Every structure is written in structure tokens, then in C-alpha cells.
């Protein structure tokens, strides 16, 4: 599910792997919902809706290790 680029985890599923992003967030103890206007997934708990995801052109980087 994740690649490592420059030491940071990059989501392999791009911006539309809704089911996998929800599953990943369910299994992550660090999920924190972003503000409403930045949430894009219908699933409330999803990496796509997490405050720690930093969007890139094709996907996102998980910043939780750097922020927590």
C-alpha cells in the first residue's frame, strides 16, 4: 500500500483508491480527521480525510511520523 520516497511513506493508491484508504485509516492509530472542507472521501475515517496526509500531484505522503 505504501512506497517509501526520500524516507517518507507515499500512498500507492493514487487519489481514488477509496476502499483501501478507508481500510488503512481504520488500521492506523494516528488517524485524525481534517477539517470538513478538506475531506474528500465519503468514509469519515479514511487516509484521504486525514490531517496528516499531504497531497502530492499523484497521491499523498503520510506525515504522521514527522508530526507526532
Amino acid at each position, binding site marked *: 500500500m505504501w512506497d517509501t520516497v526520500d524516507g517518507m511513506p507515499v500512498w500507492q493508491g493514487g487519489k481514488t483508491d477509496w476502499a483501501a484508504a478507508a481500510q488503512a485509516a481504520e488500521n492506523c492509530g494516528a488517524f485524525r480527521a481534517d477539517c470538513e472542507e478538506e475531506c474528500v*472521501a465519503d468514509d469519515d475515517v479514511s487516509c484521504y480525510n486525514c490531517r496528516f496526509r499531504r497531497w502530492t500531484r499523484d497521491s499523498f505522503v503520510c506525515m504522521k511520523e514527522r508530526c507526532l
Partner: protein
Amino acid sequence: MNLFLCIDDTDDLDSIGTGELLENMRDAAAARGLGQGGFIVRYQLLIDETIPYTSHNSSMCCTFETHDRDALTAFCQSYLEANCAEGSDPGLCILTNNSGLDYTVLTAFGKRAQTEVVSKRDAYAAAAAFGSDVSLSEHGGTGIGVIGALAGAGLRAGRQEGRIKGKLHPLPGRPTMTAGEFAALYALSQLVDTNGQPVDPQRVLTFTEPTKAVFRDGMVTGVVCCENGVWKPLPKRKKEKQ
């Protein structure tokens, strides 16, 4: 007079978002008797790893009707300095909303900020021709938020499409309604399908999941889709991301 208020780069991972900050600032200004604000539109700017955005690089813009521009400007500036996240790089743009103004340059700047990396110098250069009709101000850190603030105001003035802050929630016990009823109930100025075509007001919609309105053609717009023969407001995941 009517103004566009736009802010950017006000948050960090622990603070409220820029949209909520603008909402609070708008409401606080109204409570001070400075006028009345409108709905908030979110504009997605360029996603590029070289830009120092927190997580999504978007700016937020609303209109505000006021009788005292100077007092409103001073209020917004002090509000941002008191309420933006420490370490953020906030910028504020206040732009006259007047159909007699030609916003082509500012809208073009906003579109550039959605597709390429632009600088603060570019922002001030684009704003220069607008004289006292625009004010750009920096309120901490690098002040690089003026780029997104001007871009958002230019996009809004140019009636470019953006997402409207807030959700439209279904009414309990009312899973279906006609498209016309849906538009009236949620104050939508137009209702279109995913191809952008107007929807028959008599079409029956199933509305059981929250949805969002978009700002399109200068109007508050609802979008509906047909899934398995059922017409319904577009779920979030069907909306284009970034």
C-alpha cells in the same frame, strides 16, 4: 460596498482550518456591525512539493457587504494576527466586488497559481493595476499566504468553479424529493447533472447522504448523478479531487 475577502496559509496541523478561520472572522466582523458576509468558496491551488503548504494548498474566499472598508480591513488584519496558527504564513486579500471592474488580470493570476509556482513578487505585480480596489497584507511568518489570497480572490471575482464550504444534509424522514424541491430547500441557484446539463425540476431524487454545493457560473450549484437508475445528489467521492 461589496468586497471579496480571501485568506490563505493560516493553519497548521493542530489549528482550525483556513475555512473555519474565515467563517469565524466573517461572523466576528458582522457581530461588530461592520456588515454582512456571504458563503465561502474553496479554491484548490497547485499541488507541488516545492510549495510550503501544510497539506492541501487551498485558499478560502467570501463576499462581504460593508459600509466601512477601512474599519473592516483593520478588523480583519488584527483578527488574523490574533488567530492564525503560530508559525503559519498568513496572507489577506480584500478586493472590491464591482461588475464595472475588469478582473481578467487577477483571474489569470489565480489560474496561474493553480498550474505553476508563482512568487510574492508576481502577486504584488498582478495586484498593482487595481490601486485602492485591492489590498494585500502579510500577517506573520514569510507572508507567502498573499499569493493564495490574491489567487483565490481573483478566481472568485472571475466566477471560477470552487467548492462551497459546508455540507448539505438530508432531512430526517424525507429520503426523496423532486429536484425542484431540493434546489429550493437548499437555496441552490441551479441544479445540473454530471454533464453540466440542467435537471428537470420534476425529477425525483433520493437524498440520503450528505453532499456539497459548488460555485459554478457564479451561482450556488447542486450536482446530481444517476446510479443504477436512481437519481441523487453527487456523493463526495464522485467529485473530482484536486
